[in-house]
């Protein structure tokens, strides 16, 4: 394997990490809709950290290695339409992802406040925050943009 083959493999592994994080958050979004206690909300934090790490590694890996490959490989150029489209889609997905995180962190923050105040039972406000519709919308949009990005990477329109 050449150096560029290794970089391509790491680029694709980064993409897998990114999408794995997106899938993980979908599963947590479904699971957290039934959670109305601070204790169980807080128990999700380690899994959220795994998802955050997967998205962060995936996001940084795909963009850095992707740009490197666009310059390094014959037949590709950074100004190719499908590569510019990918860069734009990557930025949009990141923006939606940040908003998803912010929406769901409200529930986590509330849960920590409740626990610190000794209120460990069920809480309707916490349940409402865990069921945030704006969070679901933002994650749906992020997922759709990532799907478009995957289609762009595979079909390479205009290449």
């Amino acid at each position, binding site marked *: *394997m050449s150096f*560029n*083959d*290794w970089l*391509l*493999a790491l*680029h*694709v*592994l980064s*993409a*897998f990490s990114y*999408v*794995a*994080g*997106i*899938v*993980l958050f*979908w*599963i*947590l979004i479904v*699971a957290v809709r039934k959670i109305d206690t601070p204790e*169980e909300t807080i*128990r999700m934090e*380690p*899994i959220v950290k*795994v*998802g955050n790490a*997967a998205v962060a590694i995936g996001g940084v890996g795909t963009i850095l290695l992707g740009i490197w*490959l666009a310059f390094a*490989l*014959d*037949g*590709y150029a950074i100004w190719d339409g499908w590569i510019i489209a990918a860069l734009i889609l990557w930025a949009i997905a990141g923006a939606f992802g940040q908003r998803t995180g912010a929406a769901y962190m409200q529930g986590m923050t509330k849960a920590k406040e409740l626990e610190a105040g000794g209120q460990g039972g069920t809480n309707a406000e916490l349940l409402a925050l865990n069921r945030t519709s704006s969070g679901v919308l933002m994650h749906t949009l992020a997922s759709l943009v990532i799907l478009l990005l*995957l*289609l762009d990477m*595979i*079909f*390479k329109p205009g*290449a």
Partner: protein
Amino acid sequence: MTVLAAIRPDSWNFPLFLHVLGAMILVGGLLTGVSSLAFARGDVRFLRLGYWSLLAVSLPGWILMRAGGEWIASREGWTKEGVPSPTWLDIGFLLADLGGLIILISLIVGGVGVYRLRAGKGSGLLKATLVLSTIALAAYVVAVWAMAGKPN
């Protein structure tokens, strides 16, 4: 290889898309399953979440990945009799099938484990599911590396 990818026929793209999408869903389900089972610390809700991530996400992802893989391999002519398959494809097929078998065993073991949880018994079998699904996840990381880097 990368230049080849850039000029691959359009008719290969859709099966490749399904193959990659299925593989990504599979890896996502495995990552969630492993994380939930690892951090459950005996909490029934998280043990079940881990098991159902494997059953409802990883398994459909595996089916899509495997069907898409067979389709794209057929389109590329690797499944024709007498055509020698490259090393990266052999690694991919081997790990896809071996990983599928491991997932199947982990689901059967985990299914019994979830049933035992309902009866108030221990979560030992779900620990076995955690170990097996971690092995499957590691195998698929290697498979992705092989399919993308295409070592000879």
